[in-house]
């Protein structure tokens, strides 16, 4: 069984938000909901100041704090490491939203449209089941699960999260952390990486290359 994970090269990211918008379209997310986005931040004081970009999303933690707090069992971790929410079970209590230290869970209570009324694609892809339940990055598991025979996640676009396939800086890499031959494993072996809030014991599956 694979353990899916991501390696994001911070040396490459330019904060363009292409991954942000690609994710929004792939998952038909309503206005003001972002399953991922890129933080654009400053460190230091003029003239010794640095501007840094940091892509943020669900870390698909090995020890996800959002799962044990779920009173219904809707919030789950799959054997392949993907943390997801069964929206047929979720009651939208919001415990997981509070528990997630990465602010990666989103509760949308009512339908929202970009122009007040739904456009044809918004109408065509309406998802009432996602209202009042927790939603989040799924590592595009619908793509992984429907991968064509022989397609390798992380290599073949049809079987890879859209944030990775859309990145114009080739900064986002996806693959099997347990496969030493995968691109993500090779990147981890050859680069200095960090994980966010590792001290919390969350065991994130998202690594950031910093050198």
């Amino acid at each position, binding site marked *: 069984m694979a353990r899916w994970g991501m390696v994001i090269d911070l040396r490459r990211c330019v904060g363009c938000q292409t991954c942000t918008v690609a994710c929004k379209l792939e998952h038909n997310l309503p206005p003001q909901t972002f399953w991922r986005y890129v933080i*654009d931040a400053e460190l230091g004081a*003029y003239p010794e100041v640095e501007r840094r970009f940091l892509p943020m999303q669900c870390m698909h933690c090995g020890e996800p704090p959002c799962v044990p707090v779920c009173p219904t069992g809707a919030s789950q971790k799959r054997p392949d490491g993907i943390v997801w929410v069964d929206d047929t079970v979720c009651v939208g209590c919001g415990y997981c939203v509070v528990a997630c230290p990465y602010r990666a869970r989103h509760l949308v209570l009512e339908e929202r449209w970009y122009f007040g009324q739904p456009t044809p694609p918004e109408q065509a892809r309406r998802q009432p089941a996602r209202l009042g339940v927790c939603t989040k990055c799924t590592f595009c598991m619908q793509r992984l699960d429907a991968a064509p025979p022989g397609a390798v996640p992380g290599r073949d676009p049809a079987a890879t999260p859209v944030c990775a396939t859309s990145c114009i800086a080739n900064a986002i890499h996806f693959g099997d952390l347990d496969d030493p031959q995968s691109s993500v494993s090779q990147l981890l072996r050859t680069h200095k990486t960090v994980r966010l809030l590792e001290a919390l014991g969350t065991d994130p599956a998202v690594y950031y290359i910093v050198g």
Partner: protein
Amino acid sequence: MGVQKVPVYCYQCVAGPDLLNVVVEDGVATTVEPNFAFAAEHPAGGRICVKAYGLVQKLYNPHRLTTPMRRTNPKKGKDEDPGWVPISWDEALDMLAAKLNAIRAAGLLDEHGYPRLAVTFGSAGIPVAYMGTLPAFLAAWGPVDQDIGSGQGVKCYHSEHLYGEYWHRAFTVAPDTPRCRLVISFGHNGDASGGVAGVWRHAEARARGLRWVQVEPHQSVTAATASEWVPIRPKTDAAVLFAMLHVVLHELPWQEVCDVPFLRHFTNAPYLVGPHGYYLRHGSSRRPLVWDPRQGQAVPFDTPGIEPALEGEFRVRGVEEGPDGHCWAHHAARCRPALALLREHVRDYTPEWAAEIADVPAATIRRLATEYVETAAVGETIDIEGTRLPYRPVAILLGKTVCNGWGGYECCWARTVLAALVGALEVPGSILGTTVRLNRPAVNRLESVRPGSDGFMAQPLNPTDRERWQARPRSRNAYQTLVPLVANSPWSPALGPAHLPWLFLEEPPEAWPPPTLPEVWIIYRTNPVISNWESDRLLRQLPRFPFIAAFAYTVDETNWFADLLLPESTDLESLQLYRIGGTKYIEQYWRYTGFALRQPVVPPRGDTRDLTDIATELAVRTGLLAAYNAAINRGAPLGVPLQSPLYDLRLDLERPYRAEEIWDRICRAATLSLTQGREEKDLAWFKAHGAFLVPFPERQWYLHPVMAASGLRYELPYQERLRRVGKELRARLHERGIRWWDAQLAEYQALPHWKDFPDLWAQVARRYGKDPNDYPLWLLTSRSMQYAWGSNVSLPLMAEVARHVQGHFGVMLHPQTAAAAGIREGDEVVLEAPHGAQARGKALLRQGVRPDVVVVLQQFGHWATPFAKELDMPTLNQLAIMDLTLTDATGSSADLVRVRVRRA
């Protein structure tokens, strides 16, 4: 109906086109994705940028105009509701055709010789990828004024366009990023403006260790990813570049660090310059002379086997050719090689001198100059597809405000001379040109290289001699009269001083034909009220235009003044074949070249029409069908004629064709011509496959092999020809009593001197009766990748994702500056320029902004465009001052203005 993936191209920014699939589910376009079928051929793995993901919302935007509209309120003004009423296409086309036919009846030129029909396009040349066969209609029409500006000049890389193409066929310049080791970028914001190819190449290069130094007043997106940020005072870049020249030529052992063979044989560095500042020439052949130390005498520059001197002073017999055929014959003139003059020229431009001006430490300037020459790897070579070429992995880039307007010439010159000194020009690793727009053919810049005079490339300068100079301007920005460098290609009108028509309407110059308005002005994919500088001037003048027909996506700030709105089918609804690949701005360097199709992914919304069909209808209604079809047959839409020895796909001149028929023939002609008749792909094939490509040799990225094979030199560092051209232009203008262009004429210097460029803006404040010290801040702008060139400002999706990028949507200023004015984060602030114009926005406090600088992203300030008018975003264009004294010799200015700021 299921799910279909429809291949199209996106050319919403100049850094395209890129290839994508539109996902159509049960007849509704839902999302887009990269067209990975071309991942191996595309320079960025087939990816598409953030703007392309807005195309679906652009298609279904409910604020779109979907039927032609006629104005009912005869009064025009910002506060006058146009009173739009919908009309049929027949009514709309009849209305426009009646105006056009009236022009044809009266004569195509007005009483002052200006075309009665004017058209303006925006977005840096993008519209040609969307306007179908409209170019064929304009070609059939006759003289059309394309001079009325929409912001070009200050919004493009203007000096680089003109001088870059002049020196090395470089309409824009890019580093050979995959092989470069050091980039010193003066404000070039390539990670926002470079498109997917630029971003991809930069990222790959950073990951392998490219060092990138960003010199600019605020930390742009590109500074964020740079190895080092060097804050600099606005408009002082030339001082730092001059000081770098000083370091190389006076503080370092220049004979050791420079590429001396390159200087000797590929530049005019050894050309002897006489006492009047012109090349000393051979008496009979008039070839420029160089000094041959072995023979101890001057010989023509192209004498075989010589190693000409780069230093020294010599007494030489020869002739100098000045302006207007004036010659000076010398028996023993004192003359020196151009390089010796260059060394003398930069002697006083020390790092300490520049540090005072630019607020960049002298040690930093010395370090950068030294690092530059040490990284240049002078003497190294590299194999490119079996050809051994010099390898010089260093590049200096210039940003928009750096290479535009006053100081632009100085910066472009110093940058290109620094490249020439180490041979880092048009070779692997170095700076490269991308494409040509003033020279022909435009398809491949290498093919535009032809031998000219004095060992240089032939240049298509507008003539300045008494016999051929265009004394009476034939179009409203007078580019052929005032700007020799801008040439006379189809792109030249837009690259002339395109703001002059607006300026002259209010301030008619002396000894000049009276400014007139076009009787019909057609605008497409442009919104000059937002994109032009000093937009208030446009608001005052637009009500005077007799008739404006606007191809319109939504109501906007310019078509608010129109008489007729024509809703064209937009990006995903219409049909067009366009060139891709080869080399093209900003960093589109492909190993393939060919054509891509844009096609309707769903039926057009409402009653919108394909621009090709609109153009055909106009041709029919104006009696120009035969000339229009003939223009298509000649290749007006794409540059591919429909007839060649290999094929004959010509249209019958007498009958109108639908867009599908026209583009089918163009598809077939394009592929036949690209493959020398071997392959023919029709429209149906393109609709299924998206693009057709053939290999493009990588060695064609570089101009150097062509220059070497042709025995040609770069016209650097000495600008003898421009000196002569400037003198002639001065004489022509003065002969007609024109003195208002004198300041611009001063730019024609063989070796440019530093001028106090920042002070020009202070002087403008004084002209308005203000103390410049009361306007202590520089207002600058910066590129937004999410918006630049995209015509997508009415999309909430773009605003939503752009908000994650600093600067959207507000006024960026340093906390210290803010504190001094009692401003806190989020406060509404008022920016005021010396001429009284004001703009408002929310304060965004940033450490990465010099304390003497305020930054707003371009281009906003909307008040009519749906959704965009709610963004509460100021724009520099509301405050920038349009003024002749801020116009340089190329006809551009720089995107900045002095302001003061206060809390609202």
